């Protein structure tokens, strides 16, 4: 007999923690966006102007008539739902590219080379992992710029002019997730392979391949699952830097290009609360989509490897 349909209300009740978390993050965005106006300096003193937190109420009121969703970008008037999705999609493209390359390279290499994680090559790679994302991007750009100056041949584009560059951003955005996964998976595989039940399986005469597939791989899935939020945040953080340094017209760059006051710092326009809130909401959406996509992949792996339904 099929289980009874639980109904809409119990389902909503079960979704409540996720909804509450989403609402909390939206409130957090409204709070963070007010900070440049709340924390100021004047006549050599730090000044707090908490009244600016009320901008959030003004923004929410403006949502009804669409006032909060329009803002200026240079000489143009933009609407958050009409003009920002194109930038959002470009960012999403780079994020998904980074996830795919990171997973495809990092996972198998980490698992396959767990015994050699103290080798020189591996150590050098892990050393690079401690270097910040902007360092790798600058080294790539410096190399390409120097080679272009020396040979006169342009190997790759170091910034976005008309078309989004693929090679350098692809390398820069995939490198850190791949390395992080490689490191985590190598450490986890090593840890699992030291457990007593592995020795027991060996003693019972199971082949190395069988132990790997039936004992070690299922142990790696929860490790990966636990790290998904951290991995997603790392990829997003890389995206902020990559869009700034490669001048990619993604959503994170638009926030800094048109959102802030100083003409010469990030671009033109005044401090636009609405644009920054909408931009950060799009960033939150990017986070959710990437996290969901990664979760889906891990869920699939769980079904195949652990046969857990």
């Amino acid at each position: 007999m099929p289980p009874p349909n639980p109904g809409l209300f119990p389902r909503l009740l079960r979704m409540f923690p996720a909804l509450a978390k989403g609402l909390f993050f939206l409130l957090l965005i409204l709070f963070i966006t007010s900070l440049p106006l709340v924390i100021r300096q004047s006549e050599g003193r730090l000044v707090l102007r908490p009244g600016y937190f009320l901008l959030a109420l003004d923004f929410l009121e403006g949502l009804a008539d669409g006032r909060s969703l329009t803002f200026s970008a240079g000489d143009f008037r933009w609407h958050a739902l009409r003009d920002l999705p194109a930038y959002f999609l470009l960012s999403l493209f780079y994020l998904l590219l980074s996830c795919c390359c990171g997973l495809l390279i990092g996972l198998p290499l980490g698992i396959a080379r767990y015994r050699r994680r103290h080798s020189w090559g591996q150590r050098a790679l892990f050393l690079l992992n401690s270097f910040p994302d902007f360092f790798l991007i600058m080294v790539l750009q410096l190399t390409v710029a120097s080679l272009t100056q020396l040979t006169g041949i342009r190997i790759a584009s170091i910034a976005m002019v008309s078309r989004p560059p693929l090679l350098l951003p692809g390398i820069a955005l995939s490198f850190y997730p791949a390395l992080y996964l490689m490191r985590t998976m190598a450490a986890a595989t090593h840890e699992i392979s030291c457990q007593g039940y592995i020795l027991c399986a060996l003693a019972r005469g199971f082949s190395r391949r069988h132990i790997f597939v039936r004992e070690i791989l299922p142990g790696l899935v929860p490790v990966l699952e636990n790290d998904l939020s951290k991995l997603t945040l790392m990829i997003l953080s890389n995206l902020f830097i990559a869009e700034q340094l490669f001048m990619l017209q993604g959503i994170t760059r638009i926030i800094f290009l048109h959102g802030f006051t100083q003409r010469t710092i990030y671009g033109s326009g005044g401090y636009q609360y609405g644009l920054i809130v909408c931009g950060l909401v799009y960033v939150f959406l990017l986070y959710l989509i990437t996290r969901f996509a990664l979760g889906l992949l891990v869920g699939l792996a769980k079904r195949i490897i652990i046969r857990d339904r």
Partner: protein
Amino acid sequence: MTVKRRRHGGAGEFLAGGLLFCLLALVAFFGPRFAPFSPDFSESIRRVTVEGETRLIFAPEAPGPRHPLGTDMWGYDLLTLLLYGARYTLLACFAVAVLRLALGLLFGMTAGLRRPPTRRLESLGGIPAFVLLIFIFHGLTINSSLPVSRLFAFQVVCIALVGLPGVIVPVQSRTFYLARAEYVEAARSLGVGSLRILRRHIFPHLRADCLSLFVTEMIHALNLIGQLGIFYIFLGGTILTESPPLLHSVTHEWAGLVGQLRTKISSDPWLLFIPLSAYVLVLMSFQLISQGLDKHYEKKYARTPYV
């Protein structure tokens, strides 16, 4: 009979990193005394006479006898800027790590006695730490009227607080694990108070992790300062002039120099290469110490895989 000295794992890396760090600390302390120019001295155009012929040299000037590391696009001597900025870079990393470790130990150990760490809000809605810091510092840093020392201290405290969960979580998790040990249970049943348990039974076990955590936090702080520099948020303040549009780091700290010179990547790549190399030297010193410590502990507690 020759006695083979048993070498501890990671000693080489630890020593190399320590030496490099000491050298950088010396540069930070005494550097300004040996700086060839004042940090305010600039020569955007220079007149030189070669074989009776007068020539004009415009900034940025490539490395040469007068300016060993060259000048930036506004004619400031890069070696001088690096020598003056070193102290701010090192001091910021050190202060952030000290604050994080002290507060992290305090909160992590206290919380770890009661419950394990949760990972509920670790993602912060997809907003990276440096973006949050940009929003905090934006109204303060650009053309700030605050004294440099006060702004620097405020920035250091904020950077320390933003990364605090990264220290609290491992400390809390380890404390929670240790607090369930039999000897702690025994002490508790004898009526020993929480404070004494933390001080006498738990803290000695955390001491080994502290140095490792400290160096890791220095690396994190340096990376965070560098990321802020990319968005022109410099430690100690950013000077912005509208016409011509110029951006300067007030303190000339190294990550700030990387940030302000990054726009010259295609026309004068060497200009970015110099502060970036200085930044990497600091990072390498921390990283080598960290690797040495990791290797030491791994060798001490390592187990052998069965397959």
